């Protein structure tokens, strides 16, 4: 059993009076791709925001590599390799592709390693290499998603949080993005993936949690969940 990178235990998160997450517990082990699936508004994005310090849990614990991070600042976590590529991509529209990527490495000071990672990012995403000098805002949706992931990689993540990487993209592009996610994982990055597209998320992950109305409803191996009648009926459009 690989060691646990991330562990959430019984976290409760509120937006004002709204109880957004109820006793959510989950864990991610080193080397895994774990996916969080569920309907719109179920609490998937809130879970990611809580992990990376953008929101605070009212109770429960969030542990990263064994240390409690429930009160840590986001920028400190980035420096420790816990990095999120946000939903809606968060590209800086007025900066070039190259500048966007360099900002991803903001927290790092080892220049040679950053330069190597930049070359590596362009190698993974040749499309971005072609558009180096273009402004981020002029890219297509798929290219922006690639840029968001590439930029997150520039922070040298150990645990990468991906929020809805398939959002608004054509099926063919989604395939490309997920093939890249597989590749990044094989290179040693642990991934926690939030997706509405349960079908593809279950194909490209080891384990999955189904969140519904702020609770973890079902959990298990992704291969098993794909055959689970409840999951099939509710999220895979079958049965």
């Amino acid at each position, binding site marked *: 059993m690989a060691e646990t990178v991330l562990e959430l235990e019984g976290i409760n998160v509120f937006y004002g009076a709204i109880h957004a997450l109820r006793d959510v517990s989950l864990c991610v082990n080193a080397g895994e791709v774990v996916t969080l699936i569920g309907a719109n508004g179920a609490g998937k994005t809130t879970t990611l925001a809580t992990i*990376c310090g*953008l929101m605070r849990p009212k109770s429960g614990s969030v542990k990263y590599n064994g240390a409690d991070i429930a009160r840590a*600042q*986001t*920028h400190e976590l*980035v*420096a420790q390799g816990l*990095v*999120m*590529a*946000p939903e809606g991509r*968060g590209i*800086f*529209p*007025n*900066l070039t592709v190259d*500048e966007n990527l*360099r*900002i*991803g490495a*903001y*927290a*790092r000071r080892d220049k040679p390693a950053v330069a190597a990672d930049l070359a590596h990012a362009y190698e993974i995403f040749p499309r971005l290499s072609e558009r180096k000098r273009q402004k981020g805002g002029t890219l297509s949706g798929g290219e922006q998603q690639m840029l968001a992931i590439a*930029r997150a990689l520039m*922070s040298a993540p150990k645990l990468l949080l991906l929020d809805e990487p398939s959002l608004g993209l054509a099926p063919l592009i989604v395939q490309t993005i997920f093939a890249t996610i597989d590749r990044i994982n094989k290179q040693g990055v642990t991934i926690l993936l939030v997706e509405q597209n349960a079908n593809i998320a279950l194909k490209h992950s080891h384990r999955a949690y189904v969140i519904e109305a702020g609770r973890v409803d079902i959990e298990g191996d992704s291969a098993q969940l794909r055959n689970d009648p409840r999951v099939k009926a509710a999220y895979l459009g079958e049965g």
Partner: protein
Amino acid sequence: MLLAQATPGSFDTLLQQLGNGIAMGSVYALIAVGYTMVYGVLQLINFAHGEVYMLGAYYSYWPARWLGYVPDAGEKPSVPLYIVGLLFVAAMSACALTGMLIERLAYRPLRKASRLAALITAIGVSLLLQNLAQMAFSADPRGYPQLVQQTSVQLGPIALANTKLIIIAVAAIMMTGLHLFVQHTRPGSAMRAVSFDMRTARLMGVNVNRTIAMTFAIGSIMAAVAGMLVAMDQPRLTPMMGLMAGLKAFVAAVLGGIGSIPGAALGGLLLGVLEALVGWQKPEYTEAVAFAVLIVVLLVKPTGLLGKTGREKV
């Protein structure tokens, strides 16, 4: 103050006025960057910024006095250049601390409150500082020691006070330095990232709180320099001197496009020159120029000359 006296409305007076206008505009530009940078990162008009400019003048006045450089000391020998430099450093550091303190105590607790709450707080801080300054320094105007012996420099048909030339030169250097800092350094790129999108900047590992504090510090340093330069040119300090200067610099920032540093420079210079042109023909209307400009800009082009026309962040 040394001003070549010529008949109002003549061509020579026009050139003369333009020279003065560029000097005044440089001061507006120095103050305006403080408004524009803070707006860039927080979407907040920091109305207390004019008071930081006022404090810049006083922060250099007191150590100068303590060192024995008293206003109107007659034929006292000129102040050594390194002392002037040290006074600048003192005023800049004290203003940087003041700016960061204002941010920490007044604005940070309101980071998640409505923008209106922060705006009203800013007006409150401005009034607070004006009154604190009156208590501390008294409301009486004070003279300012002649740190640089004022002389008149003949430039073709016009004569400008050397202190005005110093204003223009120092402002140009400071603005260029600021531009290079923001465009080409790591903290500068953090500032730009925060102003584009605070949440994403945080996810990139930018320490947002520290970047915002730094933005206030830099804006305040620019205002400190402006305050001291003006005091050297027009040696009359009052606790209320930040009010009009601050308002006009705010107009300059809006004219140039709030959020844009080159815009603040352009807006400042334009406003200074415009005031000078009006003053050339109708001196009694000079003080109204800034407000007329503000109204026209808000009606015709609220994003200003170099402002972003893109979507407003929510």
